[in-house]
């Protein structure tokens, strides 16, 4: 079973001393089907004056901390080691309509497991669904297997959208992404999640990493040197299956899962607020994922 090591440095330079800083992170990975966490070490500089580790409602690990003394920079250095194993695909690929009906009729624990991921949140909603329908209707034809249909959808997104960091930022609405036909992995994941929920399939937004160094002879994958994002779909009794529309793959090929939620807001890697006289702010992020075997 392959083991991966993630080295993720996030550094903020404020230009001036900030009196106070509050930060909430989704950096330490959770255990998941096919992923065992061996090591999760988050180093913070300066040393926080208070810190708390909690689990959010989606089951992810959250570290909240605050610095109450003057500081001109903030460094978050996360070292992670996980062991991953590709879970088997469902032996039988059920028709997607069956899965949609089962999700809608779910009660009890199943309703709580799949329900939140049917919701159309702010980042997965568009006023007119034409663009989403154009993506889904060729793939979700009657009777087609759900895994096959989702693979088709992700392949379509991969083919029709270009990877372009200049098109979007963290606040770009989904509607813009659909018009511009481009963006980064977060945008690809949001398009896929929104499209899947629009047909009634429970879909999670997954936050994590992808291996940086490709094996010899293989092309370098996009979405490297930063956090990565993809989606996970409930396919019925078999449970959840991941799909990466940015790379047209089915994780975990070289993927490390940190956590999941309804959209990016639920699993933002680093969210912070600083208090102090306004200075310039610069952010450096460096992600390095290596396969240890």
């Amino acid at each position, binding site marked *: 079973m392959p083991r991966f090591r993630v080295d993720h440095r996030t550094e*903020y330079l404020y230009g001036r001393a900030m009196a106070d800083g509050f930060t909430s992170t989704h950096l330490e990975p959770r255990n998941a089907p096919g992923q065992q966490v061996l090591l999760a070490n988050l180093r913070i500089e300066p040393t926080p004056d*208070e810190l708390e580790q909690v689990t*959010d409602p989606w089951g992810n690990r959250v570290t909240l901390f605050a610095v109450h003394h003057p500081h001109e920079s903030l460094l978050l250095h996360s070292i992670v080691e996980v062991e991953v194993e590709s879970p088997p695909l469902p032996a039988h690929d059920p028709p997607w309509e069956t899965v949609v009906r089962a999700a809608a009729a779910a009660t009890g624990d199943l309703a709580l497991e799949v*329900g939140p991921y049917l*919701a159309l949140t702010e980042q997965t*909603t568009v006023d007119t669904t034409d663009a989403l329908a154009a993506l889904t209707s060729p793939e979700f034809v009657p009777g087609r297997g759900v895994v096959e249909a989702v693979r088709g959808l992700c392949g379509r997104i991969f083919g029709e959208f270009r990877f372009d960091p200049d098109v979007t930022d963290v606040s770009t609405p989904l509607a813009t992404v659909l018009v511009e036909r481009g963006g980064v992995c977060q945008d690809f994941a949001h398009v896929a999640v929104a499209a899947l929920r629009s047909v009634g399939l429970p879909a999670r937004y997954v936050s994590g990493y992808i291996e940086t160094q490709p094996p010899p002879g293989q092309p370098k994958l996009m979405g490297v040197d930063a956090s990565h994002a993809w989606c996970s779909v409930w396919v019925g009794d078999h449970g959840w299956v991941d799909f990466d529309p940015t790379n047209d793959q089915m994780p975990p090929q070289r993927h490390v899962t940190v956590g999941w939620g309804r959209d990016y807001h639920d699993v933002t*890697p680093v969210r912070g607020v600083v208090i102090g006289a306004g200075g310039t702010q610069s952010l450096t992020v460096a992600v390095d994922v290596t396969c240890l075997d």
Partner: protein
Amino acid sequence: MAFDSLRYSPVAGRFDEVRTDDGQLRPTWQAVARALGPLEPGVLIERQRQADRLLDAEGTGHLVHDLSVGRAESHPWRLDPVPFVLDAVEFEWLAACAVQRMQAIEATLADCYGAQRLVADGVLNPATLFGLPGYRPTAGGPGVIARWVSHYAIDLVRDDGGVWYVAHDAVDAPSGLGYSLLNRAVLARLLPDGLRAAGASSIHRHADVVRRALAAVAPPGRPSPRTVVFSGGPTSDTYVEHSYLATRLGVHLVEAADVVMRAGRLWLRALNGLEPIDVVYRRLGDAYLDPLEPGHHGGGIGVPGLVWGARRGGVTLANAYGAALAEAPAFAAALPDAAQHLLGEGLRLDMLPSGARLATSPVFDRTSGSLVPRPLVIRLQVAAHDGTFTVMRGGAGRVLAEGDEPLHPTAQVAKDVWVLDPPGVPRSPVLVAAPSLPPQVDFGASVPTRVADALYFLGRAAERAEVAARTLRVVSQQLEQDPALVSVADGGWAIGARALLRAAQGVPLTAVPEGVPLADAVATEVWSAAGVVGGQLATVVREAASVREYLSTTTGRVLGRIAEAQVALADGVVSPDALDTVLVDLAALAGLATESTVRGPAWRFLDLGRRLERALAVLGATEAALALDVSPLGLQPVAEATLAANESLVAYRRRYRSDVDLDAVLDLLLHDDANPRSLAYQLDRLREHVASLAWPDGATIVNDASLAALGHPSDTVAAGRRMHIDAFVIGVRGHLLGLSDAVVQRWFADPVNPTVMRGR
């Protein structure tokens, strides 16, 4: 025959609160109509006029929203002189419905953020619930939030058939309680006997109920919990109410910049350091509380870490973070099923169907001077405390304009809602044998830094406005009485008067530009001094608006007048009458500060600002007018102007009964500690203030200033200046400016600018 002097005809076939279909007064209204007396047009017009005046006195709608405090649009609201009346039976039924609904909302919120039985059992569609913007995954669940809704308000309407419906549940940060108390205070002044004769229940003790409700949700182990009212500040729509409520509850009104999170607890930035806070009565919506939270609106506004602290149990938010979920239409739509599922009972009140025609009530129409039928929405207030619920026996109604949705009344006309006591039943107090709560805050000792800051600059601006207005008044009057003054003593008067005006504006003394006639140079300064008066008055209004609860009620009325004067000055009205009005209002403001304000740190900072500015003004005037070496013929009117501008001319004439003598003038203005306008008097007051604040560094500076002020400037002339006066002024002023810097550094908070960090 029933007493019926109401000149009012409702629309036929539409339920009316006052008249039945056949035109008779409803039984409830027969007693009320008698109590209100004949409602003839003249009476109504007079009552409306009084109501307007009383509301203005409270500064409602005015002060903040009419005037340049930062909002373009102004919506002063008005109180209708005719109350809305509910009889005891109808009220008890509505109150029971309101309590039932509040319980249903509480149970549903607790479930949505907790066990989620409603989702598991198929009552609530998860795709709907988890997609609502008001759903806050970080709100915290069971064991963390003991109560989601402490204070609830319900909007009720009656349709044209007379059936009651719910129009809206106010759960996020329900407004209206302060307005209800304010409305009642006004009507009680207007109709003191009417309320009693009609048998209307008193509502003034409901503030105590809310205090108890807030204390009840304090984190465990806080025997004497401290509450604050958390407001968005003077630019909030309902700031008047926030300020009024804080006063009525006896707690601090705080804004985001006043508080900070440390170690999971919330602290007030006060003059004496950080003071702990236990309960936040929030008047800001969920979305504006904490910039650290996902889904936060408004960039960096709010208190970072507040929700985290609430989740850790260090501070309680009332209502809880996440309660806004209950205001979503989809939540309201699901409430009947949720109530049935969780509480096992059906809701007694239905939501108002869209497009329903509403019942009417008589509302005074200013244009026609008569009563006209209008639909309205009434809001009742409910508080949860001591294991029970109390519905305030009264409320506020909002009159709907033509085409208004009941959720969004555009007309700013309010109605006081009266609830009648049951006949023959002695009036019961709101609380029976309630143990008393310990006092919340010693306002004398605890002062938020921002408040001290605002009061200090309020004091300075008021004093600067007064000096500029008075100087302007004096110079204009001199010129009016004797236009030939301009050419007296080779322009000695004009040069002095111009310098005096510049000093009053706080701008440097400069030579008259080459080629500009003296008369024009004086006129220029008159014009720009008027601008300075207007600018300082605007500062007075702005600073006062943010610290209303530290000023007396009457102060609101004076500030309303000052705000009007400021608008007039901005429009270029600089008549002596207008200036006299400004001076009288400023004197009233100063008098209220002296006579109606408790002597604590808050008052000290107000007076400190005032004294410091006055000392600087006296020095400025002395330097401008008396250091000039002019002939005795020119000195006479200039010295008189200086004395008059510093309110010392009458004192001078009483004491010296002579023509102006420079040494005597200087003595009265600088050294006479019996003259409340003198430099020496200001220094004495400053010494008292720094001593009372136990501030050694400040005491040192004031002492240095006093030593420098002991010298007597003698008459040594060089280059047209009396050198010793200049040296004296420069020496003392240096220390005073040092004091001004030291006050800001020592006492006032750094500007707090939360910034959200970007990142992917």
